């Protein structure tokens, strides 16, 4: 696999993209780094968000330091991110208050404990997740409003305003194709025809289902109403796609493997996903990404003899904890590499890193005890005043939703509340 870590994007990359493919003004990848670094710091430019979710926690004793602030003592895990000290913040003592088990997964980015708000007619009802909310506000200018990609999860993480789960695209090759590979002229013509038809099909669908619903009971009617909100969004997607059909997709110098790596191939898979996410931002194909990583099975790491799920339920067994740490270290190295590549990618006079709020979070703090207090929450990039380690009360946690409100504000969204927020977290 040809992974290009070099940051100044080759000029050819853009020339091949065609004249109208890119909103180029804020992309400065062609300038040598020294030159662009000489530019003054930007005050504006597009804001971006990536939520990275892992569902089995991070072993707390290896992660959290005791000292708050930038001078925190290095822990086993934080030493892997040491080159980024100062450009991220790790939060101690933050969680979704009242969560208690595996089922916290669907609520990770909604901030709402789903079983507490479950509507009887909608078994899997949740409320809007952070990525969808942000996409509604800032997702308008790009080819894709947002991406929901990565390894499939047990419960969904991305939810629309009406509480419909948004499925995850689990094939990196497919995502790459969607972002960067153009159809032939015939295919483009067909695509235009298809989008046109699509709107008419949806109109017909709405009419026929209304007639059908008239003969149904109240609960079914509300299920159909719920479906209408998805149809409306599908319509919006069609409109958006239509406006982009005549623009060629951006071209990138990147080789994806012919086949999607297995879930066990943790390094290959995470590298690929992180690179695709970075390229999607770099080409301004989207500004909001939810990326789910991790797999309960056994990764193909040298020396690893058990599955992630098994190792995470370690019962304090040191051998199991060692195995768990092997997996988590591999994941943190991949994350560190992602931060590096984001820093190397110039965007105007800034870097992609400074323009992008990067949240790495898990819905479990300790999978072995199935607890959700003191979640591993790390924010990087995004132009925050990073504090290294912010230490909140580990007995009485701060609501994670308050951090989400802070993130919304940083993204230029005037929100005072989100999910279960009780205020805004002002640490960063």
């Amino acid at each position, binding site marked *: 696999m040809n992974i290009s870590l070099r940051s100044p994007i080759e000029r050819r990359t853009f020339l091949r993209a065609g004249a109208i493919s890119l909103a180029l003004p804020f992309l400065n990848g062609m300038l040598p780094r020294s030159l662009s670094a000489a530019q003054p710091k930007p005050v504006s430019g597009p804001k971006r968000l990536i939520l990275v979710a892992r569902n089995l926690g991070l072993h707390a004793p290896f992660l959290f330091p005791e000292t708050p602030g930038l001078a925190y003592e290095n822990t086993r895990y934080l030493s892997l991110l040491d080159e980024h000290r100062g450009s991220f913040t790790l939060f101690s003592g933050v969680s979704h208050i009242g969560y208690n088990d595996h089922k916290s997964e669907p609520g990770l980015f909604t901030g709402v404990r789903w079983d507490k708000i479950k509507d009887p007619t909608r078994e899997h009802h949740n409320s809007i997740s952070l990525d969808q909310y942000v996409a509604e506000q800032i997702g308008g200018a790009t080819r894709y409003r947002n991406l929901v990609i990565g390894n499939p999860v047990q419960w969904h993480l991305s939810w629309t305003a009406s509480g419909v789960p948004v*499925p995850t695209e689990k094939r990196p090759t497919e995502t790459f194709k969607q972002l960067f590979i153009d159809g032939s002229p015939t295919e483009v013509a067909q695509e235009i025809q298809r989008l046109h038809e699509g709107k008419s099909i949806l109109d017909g669908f709405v009419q026929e289902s209304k007639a059908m619903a008239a003969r149904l009971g109240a609960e079914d009617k509300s299920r159909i109403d719920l479906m209408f909100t998805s149809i409306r969004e599908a319509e919006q997607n069609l409109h958006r796609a239509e406006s982009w059909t005549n623009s060629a997709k951006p071209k990138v110098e990147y080789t994806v493997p012919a086949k999607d790596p297995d879930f066990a191939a943790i390094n290959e898979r995470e590298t690929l996903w992180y690179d695709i996410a970075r390229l999607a931002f770099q080409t301004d194909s989207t500004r909001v990404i939810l990326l789910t990583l991790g797999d309960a099975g056994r990764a193909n790491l040298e020396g690893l003899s058990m599955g992630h799920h098994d190792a995470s339920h370690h019962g304090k067994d040191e051998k199991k904890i060692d195995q768990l740490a092997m997996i988590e270290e591999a994941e943190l190295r991949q994350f560190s590499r992602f931060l590096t590549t984001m820093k190397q990618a110039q965007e105007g006079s800034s870097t992609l890193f400074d323009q992008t709020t990067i949240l790495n979070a898990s819905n479990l703090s300790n999978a*072995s005890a199935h607890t959700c207090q003191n979640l591993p929450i790390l924010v990087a990039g995004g132009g925050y005043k990073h504090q290294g380690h912010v230490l909140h009360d580990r007995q009485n946690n701060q609501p994670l939703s308050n951090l989400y409100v802070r993130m919304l504000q940083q993204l230029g969204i005037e929100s005072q509340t989100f999910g279960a927020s009780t205020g805004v977290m002002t640490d960063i």
Partner: protein
Amino acid sequence: MRLFPLVVASLALQASPLTAREVPKDARVFLENYCFDCHDKATHKAGLNLESLRFDLDHKKTESFWVSCFDKLDHGQMPPKKADQPAPPESAKFRSWLGKELTAASLERQAKQGRTPVRRLTRFEYENTLRDLLHIETELKDFFPEDTLSDGFDKVAEGLSFSPVHFARYQEAADKALRDAVPEKPYAPLKASMDGKQIMKANPDTFSKFGSWMKDDAFVLTSNLFFPYTAVKTQKVPRTGRYRVTVTACGLYTDSRPFPLGFSLLRANSLPDAPEVVAWRDVPADEFGTVSVELTIVAGEQCVLTGWTLPHRDVVTGKQKKLKITPDQWTEPSLAIREIAIEGPLTDSGGPETYPPDSFKQIYGDLALRPISETQPGFSPDPKAKPPAKRNDAEWAADPLVPFAPDPNVAAEKLVRQFLPKAFRRPVPEELQNSYVDRIRASLTAGTPFHAAMRSVFKTILCSPHVVFLDEQPGKLEGYALATRLAYFLWNGPPDEALLAHAAQGDLAKAEVLNAEVERLLNHPKAARFERSFTAQWLDLNKINATAPDSSLYPEFDRILQDSALAETEHFFHEILAKNASLLEFVHSDWTFLNERLARHYNLPDVRGFELQRVSLPVDSHRGGVLTHASVLKVTADGAKTSPILRGKWICERILGITPPAPPEDVKKIEPDIRGANTIRVQLDKHRSSPACASCHVIMDPPGFALETFDVIGGWRTFYRTPDSKAPKVQLPQSKITVSKGLDVEEGYDTADGRHFGNVDEYKKLLLSEPDVLARNLATKLITYATGAPVQFADRPLVEQIVKDSRTHGFGLRTMVHQVVESRVFLEK
């Protein structure tokens, strides 16, 4: 005495005005005396505050609280043993009242709403719907995100939500299906064969290099058959469809054992060396025999033979060169092929399809197919034009075939009106028909070419809610809805003409008709879809690929073993259903299906060949029943280790029908500490020392321990394997492979209610001593799968009736399928 605020005015939060029911005085007193000590406003243990819980059974969530109260009382779990106990008559009276109330509320809801919420098709159902409707074999399910399982099955309405993505994907899938239905260029159905000489001639240098030669008229191969080197391939197929591949061959020097011949599909993106084997056939030893398979092959792709048991080409050629062996001296296993033939596409009945294909006729009836250039308005035939048959592919792509209608408006209207009732699985009201006719007229008037207008309107039809939804109205299902439900149950696809004819006659709900139709559907090849889908979901076989066994711990594992293991379980289910054998055989049987690979894996007497055969099991085999199938044992492990917890949970949910209770919410989470525990048994004992953990694990763990003598790939074990290279080595039975020996496995355990079992055989006996539990579980699973909704409170007596009747019918599985179909829950929405 405290006031009991059971009747509280409905809060504005509720979507609809709800009236709480009356609670009689006796019942109130009962709750107060035996429940409020813990479950009142002040204490609300386990998060349950009965004092404020409204007796509002129209509210689904509140109802489920009351159902769990009923069950806790009924099972004697509440009040807790150390608390005051109600006198038996007192308790019975309360339960009888609560049960009646819950039944009434549940029935009322079912009557008003229907017990199954309105649902869309699953991605598998949608694929089969379009395939059956258009007579195509196109893969469509991968257009859609995986459906969420709810109550264990993808068909359950609660899990089948609509995301915006779905709407885009229906259109893409329908478009793909419609394009595949119409051939782009004329083609002759394929009927071709190659004899030994022709096989050799196709690739003489490579074949010779890797140890092939001719022996009389047969092509002989000594190294394995692998793309792209020593690949024996059929012709590429002209069109996606079913094809029959026939091979006449013979195994040489195989010790008189049949030679397992694999059939693989060579896809556009196949990687070198090992395309996945999709079917195995045993070729006889020492005399030529003919074997054949029917496969779905995608246009432009081909079938390639795979000879797994032959050594790698480098091994063979090295040996041959080193020993300077000539073909006539070679006496190691080899394969002689006299002929490979392919025929297709085939129709449903197995005969060759004629041109134009059925898929085209399904949409366009008897219209002609013409190159698009010849359908333009004002076209006049050019006498000098090349006859179409002589064109090459590029020319056809530039000027593809399209349907030609002399009078597009007339043809379009007729075809749309014909297709609608087939697609919608019922007669379509005139008005609705007209809306589609208007669509296509408008499109044609606007100048859209006939074929494009047709494709567009047919796509609209295939994306209609009448296709995508199961259209059922509260109450008894009318004929068409019943026909549809039956077909999606037993074929995982739409009803055929015969079923719809019964719907039209209105006699489908008659017992004898329904009975006969269930038999007809189960005897049809499409029933394999039900068998596969139900078995895979019930037993979790979808996860067979989820983990790759650690090759250092399990060097004997290979893909053939996995495929064989899956086939064992599928054959097993089919056999029980086909023979109407007892469902108790899922727990224990004295027979199973094996091939030579599985027999070796299970350390059982030799079975010859790779095709699965029904064999009797020796008494001391420790096998029999699905619990001891390698497939089940693999999906309940993670590739390196087994866990009694996961396996125990699996048995609880899949076999006993128990969902282990979640840990009580207000019990402080204690992190299990298993340090110093060497064996899994001690680890779990320590784990259970925490009450929060014990509440579930006391139920879950014991069944898991029954399977502790089976490793992650379903092999029998007396010790755990260890990655520790210094550990003593042990040779595996019937094999040269050695593994490192870790701790010994301790057999036996006690069930939650204190019954001891010494090993898996004794555990299975304990299971069989309560046959009703097993029958109840399977009835529940079948009802959930068949109706798209889990068993509800009002359905419980019906399930008990099915269990009772099943017992009198020897627990026959096929009979149970009939019972489910004849039950109220199946016949009503």
